[in-house]
């Protein structure tokens, strides 16, 4: 038997459940990559202010994001590693890039300041393969004629946690070093032949700052934030470049996305004089099986981000997609989702 007070409470509870349901209608859920998390979080905050639609994104990792979109529990999943067109077709999924980011090598060498050390892809590969062991190795000295390199052992630092940063880095090394491609390959975690692993960008940075003679790779945003000593690189055109948003975007502008099926292009080692060689990007994955309204709410959100979220992206060191890429994405949506 329910007392009047209790039944009123129950009615209230039921009512609040319904109102919760109504609130959920104006909500988009996504999950995946932690790399893109700061960007989606920033965009969704501004988007909610403007439209009242909440985008609820959880940075649970790319693996989790892919699993969730396959299971249909989220409206979009985000991955740092693109799925192959075959894999997409198998699960009725589509994918498109979101924003461009980059990463660079940082080091701890007494007397050598930020931007002074110059490296090239093949030399970095040899260092991470454990074949170049000393900083005064002729191969490094040849790239740095004016620099006095110490007679010091190299300690390589890598990401201990599975990460899109590692995938992009390894993908670049696979392109510039046949030996790397054959022995190590590219994935979010690798069988590293040498070195120590730090957790997250912060872990890598802290190991590099701790260990004299160490070298590590971190996201560009993190270099800016922590003022780390970063290296300059020779890109594919043989030009010496410093990491910059412009350099990341140049990497994307030389890709012909209209030719790449399902945007399956990785932005490392792209041509162009100003192109930064270790550029990467994050993909959003949508399900073709999802209701059209759901997919439309997601594409509307990202279109808003491409259009109005550019300066927000730049403020946290993400390069906005070039207009040609955005056009290609729109066409892709039309063919695959009818939106």
């Amino acid at each position: 038997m329910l007392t009047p007070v209790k039944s009123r409470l129950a009615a209230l509870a039921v009512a609040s459940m319904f109102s919760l349901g109504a609130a959920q209608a104006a909500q988009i859920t996504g999950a995946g990559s932690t790399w893109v998390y700061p960007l989606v979080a920033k965009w969704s905050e501004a988007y909610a202010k403007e439209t009242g639609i909440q985008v609820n994104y959880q940075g649970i990792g790319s693996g989790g994001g892919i699993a969730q979109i396959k299971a249909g529990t989220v409206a979009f999943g985000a991955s740092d590693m693109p799925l192959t067109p075959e894999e997409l077709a198998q699960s009725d999924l589509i994918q498109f890039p979101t924003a461009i980011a980059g990463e660079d090598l940082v080091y701890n060498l007494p007397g050598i300041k930020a931007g002074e050390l110059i490296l090239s892809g093949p030399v970095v590969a040899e260092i991470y393969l454990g074949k170049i062991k000393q900083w005064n190795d002729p191969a490094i000295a040849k790239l740095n004629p004016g620099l006095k390199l110490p007679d010091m052992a190299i300690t390589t630092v890598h990401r201990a946690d599975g990460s899109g940063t590692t995938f992009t880095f390894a993908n670049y090394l696979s392109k510039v070093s046949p030996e790397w491609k054959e022995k190590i390959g590219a994935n979010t975690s690798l069988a590293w032949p040498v070195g120590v692993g730090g957790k997250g960008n912060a872990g890598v940075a802290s190991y590099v700052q701790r260990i004299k003679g160490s070298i590590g790779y971190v996201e560009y945003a993190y270099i800016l934030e922590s003022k780390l000593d970063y290296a300059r690189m020779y890109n594919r055109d043989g030009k010496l470049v410093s990491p910059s948003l412009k350099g990341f975007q140049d990497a994307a502008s030389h890709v012909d996305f209209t030719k790449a099926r399902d945007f399956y292009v990785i932005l490392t080692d792209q041509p162009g004089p100003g192109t930064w060689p270790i550029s990467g990007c994050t993909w959003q994955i949508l399900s073709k099986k999802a209701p059209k309204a759901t997919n439309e709410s997601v594409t509307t959100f990202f279109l808003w981000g491409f259009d109005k979220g550019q300066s927000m992206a730049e403020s946290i060191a993400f390069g906005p997609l070039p207009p040609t890429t955005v056009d290609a994405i729109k066409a892709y949506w039309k063919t695959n989702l009818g939106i």
Partner: protein
Amino acid sequence: MPVKVTAQRSAAAGGSRLSLDVLFRKFTGAIALLVTLSLAGILIALTRESWPALHRFGWHFLISTAWDPVSDNYGALVFIVGTVVSSVIALLLAIPVSFGIALFISEMAPRWLREPVSAAVELLAAIPSIIYGMWGLLVFAPWFGNLEPWINDHLGAIPWLGALFQGPPMGIGMLAAGIVLGVMIIPFIAAIMRDVFLVTPQALKESAYAMGATTWEVARYVILPYTRTAVTGGIFLGLGRALGETMAVTFIIGNANNLSASLLMPGSSIASVIANEFTEATTHLYKSALLALGLILFVITFVVLVLAKLLLLRLDRMEGRRA
């Protein structure tokens, strides 16, 4: 919770005291059963999820040092060794220190010092493990890194054993992780030892003192034999915690998935590699291999518990024979 509410209501409605007792017994029984069921559930789920990896690699999974997500080739040996070695280092450090702390508190400390020291030890146990990890990485590792050249020169020069102590002075690695783990489990072992040392009958201790025994002799021949079971239990509790510790180890072990002879080199433990790689494990086999590692940790912990029980049984039997 709902069961309890019903119980109260039925009591209020005039249900007899007996039925309340029955209900209470069923309630506690159900809770106890729930624990067993969840344990079984975890075991079944772990086995099922790790089956693809175990099926693919077979026994090789246990003895292979490969861990290559790119070519989907996995083995657990590096992580098993890392887990066991770091835990053993922790125990080697924690057992004597805990024994000293407990003995000091129970036998030697003046009464006014007993409580503050006890409280400090218990407080150590309340610190979250991530704080130990950060302390290890930011405070202990740099200091230890300065000490490592000395370790290289002196301990590294010992024939045979020396290979264990040679490596670059990075401050992080297997030995550093073991030491931080040791500090983490000291409060657990020390608190249990202190509690049982304190309940050793005063009459026994005083008789020994009366016969001219020193404090050490009382500890060795009276207190330890009397409290052996509980002390062993405390040590295994500490070991259990060390085996499964994740965050602190991840911060300081160096996370290199390679096997190396030296304790100064970076390594990896089962818990740390799962924490590191699970979120971005994209292929089916990769995830399965990580879960298989979890299953192995489960089995290791289980074996440790069984060994502890066997040890205690053996001790009891020896005691019986002596009597």
